[in-house]
């Protein structure tokens, strides 16, 4: 029994690590979609940031410069998306797809040209990474039953960006629901005409939202390459941007439910490896692929309206044309 509990604890611990980039990206997508811009390009921005952060970390040996580079590249791509869909009223989905494909090619092209390691960046030492932070007394408390395990395994021992990700969730909630900017953000995603009539720039708000989106994807990418790992590997996001998008929809475009969806998807991912070969009575062995596909299946089921109704912001995906 204690063994099972400990295993569960480790799975939950792993869940936080797996869910961190998902949470960051889901919040990024939330800012974009709440402002009325559909962003399929979370994946691409995260991948670009991961590459930029790993490259800068390898060259400068500074984790902070790397984080800055990751965020800068991601914001630049977010603004490119904005330039295409807000300024030129291009198709938002097409633009997102373009960014994803562009980045998945460009990171490998530049990686090979600059580092000549088959698309990888050189692995960086701990001084250029975000390393686990051990909370005071974690070692001493580790042997205390229940509380010790919770404290030393769950709360302590993550890197800075994990804590940042989970602090961003209440911050996002506060910005979206308790600030003037948030009110306008929600309004511009529902009824841009009304916002325009009130004399507030629709484009300005949407660009600002894309800026937030880019910053958060930048942190997520940096986390992948120099906090969770020590180098950039080609296509290292592996669809996590899409899972985050799914989680945001699953959370019905609200911060806390979106975070919970990320944790659920992260938990599925964390237990998938442990459940390999486990035989469940009646059903038989669980295929790992089923658990891996579960986030996507669940999202489709939710979108189909079988678990409540997922209603997107009304103006989401529609370019705003100012009447003249």
């Amino acid at each position: 029994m204690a063994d099972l509990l400990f295993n569960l604890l480790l799975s939950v611990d792993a869940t936080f690590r797996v869910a961190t980039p998902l949470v960051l990206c889901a919040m990024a997508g939330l800012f974009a979609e709440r402002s009325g811009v559909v962003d399929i390009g979370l994946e691409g921005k995260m991948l670009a940031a991961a590459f930029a952060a790993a490259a800068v970390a390898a060259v400068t040996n500074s984790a902070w410069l790397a984080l800055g580079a990751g965020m800068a590249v991601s914001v630049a791509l977010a603004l490119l998306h904005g330039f295409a869909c807000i300024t030129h009223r291009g198709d938002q989905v097409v633009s997102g797809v373009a960014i994803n494909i562009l980045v998945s090619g460009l990171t490998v092209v530049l990686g090979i040209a600059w580092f000549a390691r088959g698309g990888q960046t050189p692995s960086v030492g701990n001084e250029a990474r975000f390393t686990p932070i051990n909370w005071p007394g974690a070692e001493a408390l580790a042997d205390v039953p229940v509380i010790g395990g919770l404290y030393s395994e769950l709360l302590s021992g993550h890197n800075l960006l994990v804590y940042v990700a989970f602090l961003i969730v209440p911050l996002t909630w506060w910005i979206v629901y308790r600030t003037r900017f948030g009110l306008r953000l929600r309004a511009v995603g529902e009824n841009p005409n009304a916002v325009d009539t009130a004399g507030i720039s629709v484009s300005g708000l949407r660009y600002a939202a894309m800026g937030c989106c880019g910053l958060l994807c930048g942190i997520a990418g940096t986390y992948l390459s120099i906090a969770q790992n020590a180098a950039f590997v080609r296509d290292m996001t592996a669809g996590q941007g899409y899972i985050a998008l799914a989680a945001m929809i699953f959370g019905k475009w609200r911060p806390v439910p979106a975070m919970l969806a990320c944790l659920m998807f992260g938990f599925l991912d964390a237990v998938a490896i442990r459940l390999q070969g486990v035989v469940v009575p009646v059903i038989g062995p669980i295929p790992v692929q089923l658990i891996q596909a579960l986030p996507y299946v669940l999202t489709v089921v939710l979108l189909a309206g079988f678990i409540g109704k997922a209603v997107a912001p009304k103006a989401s995906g529609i370019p705003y044309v100012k009447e003249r």
Partner: protein
Amino acid sequence: MAAAPGKIPRWVDVALIPLVNIALAFIVSGFILWTIDVDPLTALKTILVGAFGYSDAIGYTLYYTTNFVFTGLAVAVAFHAGLFNIGGEGQAYIGGLGVGLGILLVDSSLPFLLILPISILLAAAFGAAWAAVPAYLQAYRGSHIVITTIMFNFIAAALMVYLMVNVLIQPGSMSPESREFAPEGQLPFMHEVFGWFGIEVTPSPLNLSVVWAAICCVLVWAFIWRTRWGYEIRTVGANETAAVYAGIDPRRVIMLAMCVSGALAGFVGINEIMGVHHRLLLNFTAGYGFTGIAVSLMGRNHPIGIVLASLLFGMLYQGGAELAFEEPKVTRELVVTIQGLVILFSGALAYMMKGPIERAYLRIAGGLGRPAGQEG
């Protein structure tokens, strides 16, 4: 602000603006090459020679082109109904599964001439079925087709890994591949076809499915512009409200367009599984479904444009492989980068150059026309 409509001739809109957009994509690609110390012009020459310089290179180029025609047509048919089918990759994957399952079941008992139509039907049926679920959810449950087709790509990938690793793997084999098809279940290569007539051609993966791709282009053209269904699809794509007033049921049109789209994507399975690999395996779609988006946007959703765009991408894939071989600093992913840029400039930023080009045209045409006509 914009110039009065009607004054801009059609060729500016249909040919000039798309060409300028594609040129921009290639200029940026050249710039990327330049930043990594590769001379863009030398690279272009290597790509061209690598794609058309010798006979098996042409075979490879056309083999890639075949895949892009199928996925490009798939995306285009959905676009005509105003739908963005991003799930070509998954539909091609499942279409290939259908082809493989069918051939594995019957290749020892039926002749080739029966297996071929069965395979084509199965590719279409499986691809269409994989597109039908997102289509149904969009049409009848209001869930967004972009998101559901993305999800279905991932579900298809997981399903294929499960089937290949656990069910279809050849017993005793280490790699997740099925057994090889019997000769009756293999589509002849084009060098074999030419061989029947005594013409010697260098071997390449190009197979008979290139002929099927050409037939599909004609069929899609006839379907979209010469049938009542195509008319309904275009009407819904242009104006759904008007379509409803005209007595067209958009829900049925969505189902129809997506099923045709999925079936076309499924034909990638004919080329890859029946034509080249002769067995079921993982990842044979290799991103062709996504390239279809670039092909369709570049070809402006018309079969002729799609054939031209497919040729261009076939050239880039084959020539890009040669370039990667010649030039150690360049990888095949350069082609993926170009693909992304093409989607960006001819898709997302399609309107960016419209205004400036139209104004420039009016200024030039106005400057030339005034002395003769004097009408304002």
